[in-house]
């Protein structure tokens, strides 16, 4: 018979690292993630032939196929051990650590999202997409917000997985996220003002340009892409912290609530700064 392997209790960081790696591999092999990634590659062919001055908003492809699909993946990974709850609870790695590992695993779609927006930017530069009213820095911020959405969607899935128990909650969250984005983007159809910028930019995924045949001239909406980027990064932090709060007890729960409050205030500040700029729409 094989002898039992001697070992000492590992530090929490080592357990987190190992568990995050295991969860990352589970994420990377999840069928919904692979489906989204496959569709993204397929859609990229069409996108590369159709780049124009509005190309930063093409991030919607990665935001939907990796970010929104990621809500389902994050939710399923979080709930997957619900039938083994007692055995999992009796293990020394507690719920906060397990949730933190799941949140770190959301960097897998984030890496894909970052790689994709990098490819989009490089392709736009290489194909000499015409200069426009959107400066290089703002283009990068808008694209990076697309990459952040690929982390944010899965984090929302993890959060919903921790806080809800009814079947299909992940799907409901994904649909609500799409409706929220759709509703906020309809502000582009309204007259330019701080209020319409607020209605558009409070969503975790925002469009910045007019597109399609509805407008005689394409234009870029007002607001600061960089502050909006900071806002969506903070929303990701809020989702991750909210997921961990559910598992925390005692003093740690109190501390996490405080972190949540601070992140919330910072997010509101960033949103205010994103909206504070000139709301005038500039032709591209």
């Amino acid at each position, binding site marked *: 018979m094989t002898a039992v392997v001697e070992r000492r*209790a590992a530090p929490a960081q080592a357990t987190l690292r190992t568990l995050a790696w295991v969860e990352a591999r589970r994420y990377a092999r999840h069928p919904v993630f692979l489906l989204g990634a496959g569709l993204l590659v397929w859609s990229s062919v069409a996108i590369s032939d159709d780049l124009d001055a509005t190309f930063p908003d093409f991030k919607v492809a990665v935001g939907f196929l990796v970010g929104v699909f990621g809500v389902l993946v994050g939710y399923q990974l979080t709930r997957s051990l619900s039938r*083994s709850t007692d055995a999992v609870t009796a293990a020394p790695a507690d719920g906060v650590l397990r949730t933190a590992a799941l949140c770190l695993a959301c960097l897998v779609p984030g890496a894909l999202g970052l790689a994709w927006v990098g490819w989009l930017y490089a392709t736009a530069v290489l194909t000499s997409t015409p200069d426009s009213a959107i400066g290089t820095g703002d283009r990068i911020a808008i694209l990076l917000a697309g990459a952040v959405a690929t982390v944010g969607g899965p984090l929302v899935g993890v959060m919903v997985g921790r806080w809800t128990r009814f079947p299909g909650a992940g799907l409901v969250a994904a649909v609500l996220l799409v409706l929220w984005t759709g509703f906020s983007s309809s502000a582009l159809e309204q007259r330019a003002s701080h209020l319409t910028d607020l209605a558009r930019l409070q969503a975790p995924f925002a469009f910045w340009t007019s597109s399609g045949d509805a407008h005689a001239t394409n234009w870029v909406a007002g607001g600061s892409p960089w502050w909006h980027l900071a806002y969506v990064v903070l929303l990701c932090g809020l989702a991750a912290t909210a997921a961990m709060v559910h598992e925390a007890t005692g003093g740690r729960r109190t501390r996490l609530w405080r972190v949540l409050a601070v992140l919330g205030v910072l997010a509101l500040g960033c949103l205010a700064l994103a909206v504070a700029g000139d709301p005038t729409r500039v032709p591209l």
Partner: protein
Amino acid sequence: MTAALTVSLTGVTKRYRGTPALDSVDLSFGAGITGLLGPNGAGKTTFLRIVATVLAPDAGDVRLLGRVPETADRLAEVRRRLGYLPQEMGFPRGFTAFGFVDYMAVLKEWTAHAARHAEVRRVLDLVDLGNVTTKRISALSGGQRRRVALAQALLGEPDLLLLDEPTTGVDPEQRVTLRQVLSRAGERSTVLLSTHQTEDVAALCDRVVVLDAGRVRFDGPVTDLVATAAGRVWLADAPHPAARASWRTGTGRHRNVGEAAPPGAEPAEPTLEDAYLLLLGDRARTTAVAA
């Protein structure tokens, strides 16, 4: 090192919507295997869940492995030395037997890759699943799944091993294998074994605790419980109306468990099951018939 008294519960009470699942239970356990018997709803699973730190009691004191598991640090210290097989255990979709036990090993802080994999292989071999490690759990039989669940509880040779119906759905040959595994575990650890299989308790345990309606009805050596049935088990040609339990055996004779000897009956050697039926009376009989 295992403390002399690994588990100590004093006045432990747990209620579900006002109904007591455990009612002021005082029990303590040291090294060795203790069987927990009792009808459905007796409080065995609630008892094990409290000892496994999964469930907090409404009242009473719990001391495990020399610690009161109240703070996060103390809980983690206890859980590092604890193995728990829950009564009902589902598995995440897509996992292989190896993958699931490996995942549980990570949760049990096995971070070194090679050592963890060696330990996972060891416990899967112990439960005789070494040949199906790469099979998806969904493709395994019920008995094999139960053994996967047991394997995760055995990780790291825990000082306190809590098993809630480990042999459910396991075939007789595998039950013997599992008995060997558990008897070895009982040599160094405290093993609490909740089961409806009295023969497992008779074969493995030095001590038996019988719970009924959240209270301890019997606590002592298995032989003492069996002795309570001496002279109260009979083999007769017909069932006796006054018997607590009566059934036709394979030989065609009826085994009557009760106070009165049927006419023409001959005394039979009592078993733990007989003693259990006599102890719990009608409640146990209802459960036995239902089972």
